[in-house]
C-alpha cells in the first residue's frame, strides 16, 4: 500500500510551483478543513435525537467526508511537496475501519488485547471491554470514584474462544428461525449452543493468560491464595443503549479453582434462549454481539443496593434508593423485602420518605466460593440499612454520575466493611429520555430567575447545566478544574478537551461553532455557548449559574431545579441499528487525539480519526506556508518594491497576488497602495503612532518610535540587512520578516471574512543586551500577547504567539497592536532591570492601547 500511494503523489515533488499557486492551495486547504469540520459537526448533531436519518444518510456523509479528507491530504502534498505517505496510510486505515463498520464486519479484531486492567479502561475501549466495564473504568480513572479493582477479559478473547467452538456460524440459522417465527427451533439451537459452550475447553494460551491475570491481581491486592472475584458480563451494547437487564450471567465470589469455569458460564449466557431472542427482537446483528467479561475483586458489602437517580412515579424531584444488609444481588433480583428511601435531587439531599422493611436474612460471601444466606442479628432486622452519612454520600455520587452521563441512571452500589462506597454498576434508567428544555422554561418564569445575559453568542451544544463558574486562562489551570464546574474561557481551544469530561457546561467570549473545540463539546455533549463576547466580564469565578444552551441564556443561581428530565414512553431512538451504526462510524471520525502541536505524538502516525488528520494538516500547512514565503517567495513572485513611508522603514514588499496597487514593475510602493489587509493593519500600528503622543501614560511611545527609526536606519547599512526586511503579500495574506536592530520578528497572517481561516503567527527573537534582560523582554511581550488572546510559548528569548479564528475586525486590531508592540519593545530590554519591570511595562503598553488619544477605536479587554 505504501508504495502505491507514494507513487501516486510523486509527481508533485518534481515540480516547483509558483508561490501564488501554492498559496491558492493553502487557501483550499483552509476551505476543506472548514468543510470537514462542518460535516463532522453535522453528523455529530444527528446523534442528538432531534433528527430522523436513515442508513443512506450515513453512507452518503461518510462518502463525502472521505472524499474531502483525501483531497485535503492531496492539497497538503502539493503544498509541502512531500509524499506524506504516513498521512495517507493513516487515512486508509481510518477508511478501512469505517467501511468495516458499514459492511458489518465483526467489531473485534486480531489486534484486540485479551486482558485489560481496570486502570487502562475508558469509554474509548467500549468495543473491547463492553459498555458496562468501559463505564466503570471511566468512573474509576476519570471521576476518581471507588470501583472494585480488577480487569476485563475482552471481546477479543471472546472471539478467540468462540472461533474454536464453531458457534459464530450459527447466527444466520437463528435469524432464519426468528424470521419464520419458529420459536421451538430457536430454543433448541440456543440450548445446544449454551450446552456446548459450557463444556468447551478454552484455548490453552487463553486459559494461561486468564489465570496469570487472576494471580497478578491477587499479588497486587496482597490477597494471595484468597482472592475472590465477581465475573460480570459486559457485552457490546449491554448497559450502553439497550439495558439487557437480567439477560446475561453474573457469577459471584469466584476463587481461582473455579475461575475458568465461571468465565465459560458468563460467556455461555449470551446464547441462552431468552438472551438470543432479546437480541433478535432488537435487531442486533451477529457482528454486534461480543461478550467481554469483567473480573472484579469481591467487596464484602455490609450494606448494598440500587439507586435510581429519578423516581418520577413518586415525585419528579426525588431519587430513590433500595437497600439491604449484605451483598447487592437480592435487591437486583427483587426476591427479598428491602428498605426504601426517597431523597431530594438537589442539595442538601433531604430525606423525604423512609420505609424500613423487616430484613431477617442477608446474602454474604461464602468462605470457600459462592454466596450463602445468613440470619441477620435480631436487633438489626428492623433497623434501616443506611445511615444519614451513607445516604448523603450516595446522593452526591449519584448526582455527579448523572451530570456526567447526562441521563437518569440506575446505580448498583455497596458499602464495604471500611464504610467505603463502591460503585458496582451504572446503567441508563430505561424508558426515560432527556427533555430538559421545557423544565427550564417553567423555572425561568419564576421571578427569582435573574438573567445575566441572553441571546449572546452561538449555541454549539444544546442542553442545560448548573454549576459554579471556573475561569481558566492558562495551561496550568487545567489540572485544577473541578468536576462539575462551568468552564469559562476567553477563547475556545481544543486543549480544553482534556477537561471536557469534567465540565458541566462551557461558555466562551470568542470562538466559532465549527472549530475543533465545538466538535469535541458535541462529542462530550457538554452544553456550550461560544462567542458571547461578554461572558468573562459579566460572570464571576465561583458564582453559581445556570447555562441554558438550548434557549441561549445564562441565569444567576441554579434555576434548573430537579426538572432535568421528562417522561417519554416511547422506544428510545438509541435502540435503532442506524443510531448504533452512526455512533460506531463517528468513533473513527470525531475523537481528537492530537491535542498538543508541541507534543511528540503530533505526527501523522498518531492520526486515528478524520479529526486528527484535519488538525494535523491545518497546523502543518500554516508552518509550511511560513517556510515557503521565507525560502521561495522571492524566487516565484513579482519583483520586490520598496515601501515609501514617513518613516524609513526600509521594507521590501513582494506582491504575490492583489496585495499592492500601482504598476508591478515600479521600484517603489506607497503606504496607500498597500492593499494587503494584514500589512495595512500592521503599518497602521507601526507608522501612525502619533495618535498616542498626547496620551498621558508612563511610557512615552513617541520616544520609542524615534529610537526605533534611528536605530533602524543605521541597521540598514548593508544590502544583507535590507534583505531581512521583506514582506510577501496578497490581498488577505502577509508574511513579513523584520530585523529591527538585533532582533528578528516574523509575522505570518491571513485575514479575511471567513473567521475560521483567520490566523496570526508571531515570532520574536534576539536583542542586544545580556540574555537575562532579553528573556525579561520576551516575558513582557508574552504577557501582552496573552492579554490580546494569543496562545503563547516562550523558549528563552524566543516568543511565539498564535491567534486563530477571530472576526476580521478583531484580527486587524490585533495586527495594529503588533505594529505598536514592535515599536514599543524595540529597546525595552535595555530597561528591564528587574522581573517586576516585566509586569509594569506590559501593563503600560496595554494601558496605552486601551486608552489611545485621538479617537482610536481599538477595543479593550474587560
Amino acid at each position, binding site marked *: 500500500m505504501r508504495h502505491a500511494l507514494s507513487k501516486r503523489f510523486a509527481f508533485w515533488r518534481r515540480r516547483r510551483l509558483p508561490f501564488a499557486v501554492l498559496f491558492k492551495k493553502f487557501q483550499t486547504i483552509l476551505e476543506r478543513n472548514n468543510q470537514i469540520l462542518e460535516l463532522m459537526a453535522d453528523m455529530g448533531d*444527528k446523534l442528538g435525537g*432531534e*433528527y*430522523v*436519518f*436513515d*442508513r*443512506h*444518510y450515513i453512507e*452518503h456523509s461518510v462518502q463525502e467526508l472521505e472524499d474531502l479528507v483525501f483531497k485535503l491530504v492531496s492539497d497538503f502534498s502539493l503544498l509541502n511537496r512531500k509524499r506524506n505517505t504516513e498521512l495517507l496510510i493513516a487515512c486508509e486505515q481510518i477508511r478501512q475501519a469505517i467501511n468495516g463498520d458499514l459492511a458489518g464486519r465483526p467489531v473485534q479484531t486480531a489486534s484486540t488485547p485479551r486482558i485489560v486492567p481496570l486502570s487502562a479502561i475508558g469509554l474509548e475501549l467500549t468495543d473491547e471491554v463492553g459498555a458496562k466495564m468501559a463505564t466503570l473504568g471511566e468512573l474509576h480513572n476519570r471521576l476518581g470514584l471507588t470501583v472494585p479493582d480488577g480487569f476485563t477479559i475482552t471481546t477479543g478473547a471472546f472471539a478467540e474462544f468462540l472461533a474454536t467452538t464453531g458457534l459464530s456460524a450459527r447466527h444466520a440459522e437463528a435469524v432464519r428461525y426468528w424470521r419464520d417465527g419458529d420459536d421451538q427451533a430457536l430454543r433448541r439451537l440456543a440450548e445446544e449452543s449454551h450446552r456446548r459452550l459450557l463444556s468447551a475447553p478454552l484455548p490453552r494460551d487463553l486459559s494461561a493468560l486468564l489465570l496469570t491475570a487472576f494471580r497478578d491481581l491477587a499479588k497486587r491486592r496482597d490477597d494471595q491464595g484468597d482472592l475472590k472475584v465477581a465475573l460480570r458480563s459486559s457485552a457490546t451494547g449491554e448497559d450502553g443503549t439497550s439495558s439487557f437487564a437480567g439477560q446475561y450471567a453474573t457469577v459471584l465470589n469466584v476463587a481461582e479453582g473455579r475461575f475458568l469455569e465461571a468465565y465459560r458460564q458468563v460467556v455461555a449466557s449470551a446464547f441462552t434462549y431468552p438472551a438470543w431472542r432479546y437480541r433478535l427482537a432488537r435487531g442486533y446483528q451477529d457482528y454486534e454481539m461480543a461478550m467481554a467479561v469483567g473480573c472484579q475483586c469481591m467487596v464484602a458489602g455490609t450494606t448494598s443496593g440500587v439507586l435510581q437517580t429519578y423516581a418520577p412515579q413518586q415525585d419528579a424531584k426525588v431519587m430513590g434508593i433500595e437497600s439491604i444488609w449484605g451483598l447487592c444481588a437480592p435487591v437486583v433480583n427483587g426476591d427479598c423485602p428491602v428498605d426504601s428511601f426517597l431523597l431530594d435531587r438537589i442539595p442538601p439531599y433531604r430525606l423525604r420518605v423512609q420505609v424500613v422493611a423487616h430484613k431477617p436474612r442477608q446474602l454474604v460471601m461464602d468462605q470457600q466460593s459462592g454466596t450463602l444466606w445468613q440470619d441477620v442479628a435480631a436487633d438489626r432486622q428492623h433497623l434501616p440499612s443506611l445511615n444519614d452519612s451513607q445516604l448523603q454520600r450516595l446522593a452526591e455520587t449519584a448526582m455527579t454520575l448523572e451530570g456526567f452521563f447526562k441521563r437518569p441512571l440506575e446505580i448498583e452500589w455497596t458499602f464495604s466493611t471500611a464504610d467505603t462506597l463502591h460503585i458496582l454498576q451504572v446503567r441508563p434508567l430505561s424508558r426515560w429520555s432527556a427533555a430538559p428544555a421545557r423544565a427550564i422554561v417553567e423555572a425561568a418564569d419564576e421571578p427569582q430567575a435573574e438573567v445575566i445575559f441572553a441571546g449572546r453568542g452561538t449555541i454549539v451544544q444544546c442542553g442545560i447545566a448548573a454549576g459554579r463558574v471556573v475561569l481558566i486562562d492558562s495551561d496550568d489551570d487545567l489540572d485544577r478544574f473541578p468536576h462539575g464546574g462551568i468552564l469559562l474561557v476567553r477563547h475556545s481551544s481544543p486543549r480544553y478537551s482534556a477537561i471536557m469530561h469534567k465540565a458541566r457546561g462551557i461558555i466562551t467570549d470568542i470562538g466559532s461553532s465549527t472549530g475543533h473545540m465545538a466538535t469535541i463539546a458535541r462529542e462530550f455533549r457538554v452544553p456550550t455557548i461560544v462567542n458571547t463576547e461578554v461572558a468573562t466580564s459579566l460572570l464571576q469565578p465561583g458564582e453559581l449559574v445556570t447555562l441554558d444552551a438550548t434557549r441561549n441564556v445564562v441565569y444567576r443561581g441554579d434555576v434548573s431545579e430537579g426538572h432535568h428530565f421528562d417522561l417519554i414512553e*416511547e*422506544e428510545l*431512538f438509541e435502540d*435503532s*441499528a*442506524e443510531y448504533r451504526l452512526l455512533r460506531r462510524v463517528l468513533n473513527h471520525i470525531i475523537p481528537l487525539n492530537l491535542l498538543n502541536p508541541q507534543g511528540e505524538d503530533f505526527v501523522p502516525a498518531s492520526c486515528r480519526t478524520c479529526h486528527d488528520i484535519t488538525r494535523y494538516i491545518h497546523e502543518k500547512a500554516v508552518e509550511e506556508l511560513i517556510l515557503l514565503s521565507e525560502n521561495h517567495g522571492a524566487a516565484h513572485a513579482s519583483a520586490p518594491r520598496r515601501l515609501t513611508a514617513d518613516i524609513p522603514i526600509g521594507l521590501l514588499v513582494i506582491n504575490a497576488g492583489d496585495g499592492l496597487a500601482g504598476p508591478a514593475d515600479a521600484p517603489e510602493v506607497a503606504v496607500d497602495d498597500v492593499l494587503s489587509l494584514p500589512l495595512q493593519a500592521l503599518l497602521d500600528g507601526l507608522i501612525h503612532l502619533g495618535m498616542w503622543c498626547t496620551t498621558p501614560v508612563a511610557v512615552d511611545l513617541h520616544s520609542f518610535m524615534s529610537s526605533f527609526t534611528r536605530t533602524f536606519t543605521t541597521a540598514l547599512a548593508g544590502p544583507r540587512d535590507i534583505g531581512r526586511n521583506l514582506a510577501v503579500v496578497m490581498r488577505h495574506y502577509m508574511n513579513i520578516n523584520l530585523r529591527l536592530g538585533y532582533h528578528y520578528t516574523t509575522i505570518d497572517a491571513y485575514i479575511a471574512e471567513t473567521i475560521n481561516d483567520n490566523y496570526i503567527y508571531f515570532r520574536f527573537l534576539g536583542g542586544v543586551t545580556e540574555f537575562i534582560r532579553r528573556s525579561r523582554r520576551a516575558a513582557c511581550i508574552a504577557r501582552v500577547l496573552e492579554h490580546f488572546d494569543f496562545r503563547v510559548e516562550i523558549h528563552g528569548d524566543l516568543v511565539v504567539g498564535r491567534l486563530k479564528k477571530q472576526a476580521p475586525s478583531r484580527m486587524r486590531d490585533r495586527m495594529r497592536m503588533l505594529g505598536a508592540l514592535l515599536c514599543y519593545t524595540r529597546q525595552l530590554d535595555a530597561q528591564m532591570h528587574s522581573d517586576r519591570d516585566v509586569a509594569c511595562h506590559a501593563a503600560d503598553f496595554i494601558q496605552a492601547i486601551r486608552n489611545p488619544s485621538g479617537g482610536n477605536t481599538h477595543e479593550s479587554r474587560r
Partner: protein
Amino acid sequence: MSPVADQPPIRLLILDDEPIVCKRLKPTFQKLGYDVETFTDSASALARLRQQPFDIVITDLKMEGADGMQVLAGVKEVSPATRVIVITGFATMETARESYRKGAFDFIAKPFKLGDLVECVQRVEKTLQTDRRTPPERQP
C-alpha cells in the same frame, strides 16, 4: 397543537422503505393524537389508500416498486383532498418542483428534524380544518 377534541383524529399514513423512519415517526405523531399507520413498501400502502382515505400521507420518494411520485399520483387519484408531504434523501430542485407540480403539499429533505415535520403536519392540519368548514370543490 393536537387535533381538535370534538373532531375525529386526523388520519396519517407514513410510507418509507427505511423502517427506522417509520419507527421514529409513528410514536411521535401518535403522542400528538394522530391516527397513524406506517408502511415500508409502496404496494401495501397504495392498497391501503384505496381501501380507506387518509387526511395526510407522508411518503418517501425513492423506493422499490412504485416510487413516491407514483404514490403521490395514486393518492391524488383516489382522494384529491388528501395532503401529501414528500420526504427524500435525494433532494434536488427538480424533484421538488415535480412534487409540487403533482400536488404535493410540502417537500422535505432527509435527514430532517422531527420538529420540522411535526410543524409541517400541523400546517396541513390547519388547512384541513378550513376545508372541513368549507368543503373544497372536487378536483377533476
